[in-house]
């Protein structure tokens, strides 16, 4: 079965648990914590997906990681996943959970690429404009890439708003070649 279907099923279950407990904020905070830990540590990812390592060992390690967190439901969820031999899907489940949460809260995540660093004021203005455009809450991360020469490029989900000079030049070239 496709990874997506399985991950989606588990993530949806976790989501409904969080909603039921009326504690979505805490849940997502903790999930993000696991997400960050895992994305920082390659060893942890390899450890999780290694089939030779026995379940109890994996469980102990996760208990140790989640010790600082008080959320017992989440710890129980992770334990359940390990007991079901789905621990290699944990990163996918977490990713899907965060997507579902964004959907629920109406948050759009976007990446802005600029040729130069934007000032705080410009960042806030851009965010406001995008919120007007999408009618949703927008959270942006900023990146500097001088390959686009000038202007900016926003990628939010599958949609790209391309106001970069590189793209303008590309369009110009296309227009000229079409006329001849």
């Amino acid at each position, binding site marked *: 079965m496709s990874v997506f279907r399985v991950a989606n099923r588990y993530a949806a279950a976790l989501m409904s648990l969080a909603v039921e407990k009326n504690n979505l904020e805490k849940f997502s905070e903790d999930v993000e914590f696991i997400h960050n830990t895992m994305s920082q540590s390659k060893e942890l990812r390899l450890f999780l997906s290694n089939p030779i390592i026995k379940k109890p060992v994996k469980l102990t390690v996760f208990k140790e990681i989640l010790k600082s967190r008080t959320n017992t439901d989440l710890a129980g969820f992770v334990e359940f996943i390990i007991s079901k031999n789905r621990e290699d899907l944990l990163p996918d489940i977490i990713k899907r959970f965060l997507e579902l949460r964004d959907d629920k809260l109406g948050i759009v995540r976007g990446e802005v690429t600029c040729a130069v660093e934007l000032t705080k004021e410009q960042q806030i203005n851009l965010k406001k404009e995008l919120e007007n455009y999408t009618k949703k809450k927008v959270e942006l991360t900023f990146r500097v890439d001088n390959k686009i020469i000038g202007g900016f490029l926003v990628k939010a989900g599958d949609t790209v708003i391309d106001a970069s000079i590189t793209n303008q030049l590309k369009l110009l070239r296309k*227009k000229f070649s079409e006329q001849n």
Partner: protein
Amino acid sequence: MAEVRPDEVSAILRKQLAGFDSEAEIYDVGTVLQVGDGIARVYGLSQVMASELVEFPNGVTGMVLNLEEDNVGCVLFGESTLIKEGDMVKRTKRVASIPISNKVLGRVINPLGEPLDGKGPIQAEKFFPIERKALGVIARQPVKESLQTGIAAIDAMIPIGRGQRELIIGDRQTGKTAVAIDTIINQKYTHSEEAKKYGIKPVFCIYVAIGQKNSTIAQVVAKLEEHGAMEYTTVVSAPASVPAPLQYIAPYSGATIGEFFRDNGQHALVIYDDLSKQAAAYRELSLLLRRPPGREAYPGDVFYLHSRLLERASKLSEEEGGGSLTALPIIETQQGDVSAYIPTNVISITDGQIYLEPNLFNAGVRPAINVGISVSRVGGNAQIKAMRKVAGSLKLDLAQFRELESFAKFGSDLDKATQRTLAKGARLVELLKQGVYAPVPVEKQVVAVFAGTNNYFESIPVKDVKKFEKEFLEYIEVKSPEIFESIRTTKALDDVTIAKIKSGAEEFLTKFKRSE
């Protein structure tokens, strides 16, 4: 070369730039997850439509066929080696479509409407989707006008009407394409001033070549040009060398071009040469998209593949303009096996079929049409009155001949009546033989068949039948051209004309010189 001053250059550039607006472009993208065998799996593109065109890097385009939960399956119209994992895919927000205008006539194009003949771009303002739903009952009317193929055997016994779907089926090398090309060439008459006078509307032709050799397509185009038939014909070329997805969409593109003429109240004829190859191309990409295989490994919707294509052939009602789209699909059988999957499917969809047989072909009966099992379910409505009148007895005579044919080896042991039937049948078969690219106008067919069924060939040896026919028709042309004229204008065979043909034939019989 004329000298260009630098200030002129900048003026030209400024003019070009004036129309360029620098607004931000908004588009949807996805990422290639996996690519190979002409298929790409794409992550993202969440808003994409089924059968939408998408753009890959390096100028490769593709079409979305599978919409799955977390990815999109695309077929590629270009080289899959130019695309790699992680490449960006852009939506075009345009369902697969081709630009069409009257300018496509006389051109050779690919299934996406791009010219292949080096005659420059084709001017067209509008794009038409290649997949369209066939018209319903209200928009249609029964087939009633004839589409002359110029092949006597077909026009007399298996008549094709405008708006009909008639299958041409047979093994390889039995002259299937020749029948189709003859039909296209014969439409030249409908574009003449003379035809206009008699109220015959022009028929525009589309020849869709699927999975053929490039050299064969070039030959067909050359033949059409040689006979002046390219002026009203478009060739849609998807040779064996292009990726399977292009071969798969080629017939739909052809149908869309035909519909363009039909919807403008004109008449169109589209030939799909051949649909077996298209089904094979569709099977290839279906299997690559991991759709479950069925009988002969074709996917489950291979019937729908052909039915939705052939359903688009139609005769429009007068309110809709009265245009028509006739379809002549071609199917190649293996060793005469018409009970294979694709042949049975297409036979059941079409309004009749023309069987071509290698035995007949090798015996010198060309076109090698087996008139015994060939049928046209539209029937007499698609014939002019005159032809209907003479064709009835022709069919009967040939049926009797076939029944007794196996006794022919007993020769003189047979009774007189049987011998006569056999002799007449042999002469009629000979009469229906015809060269390639030599279509015969309907009035001549009528006179020749009339002479044949009324025993004027009885005294002529079989080997002289063709010679007799040719000279007889020439004789009529010179002596009493009013016979042809009358059939052309009234489209019927009145008693006066019949009497004239009879007296003409009797006169000519006395003058005919047999070959030594």
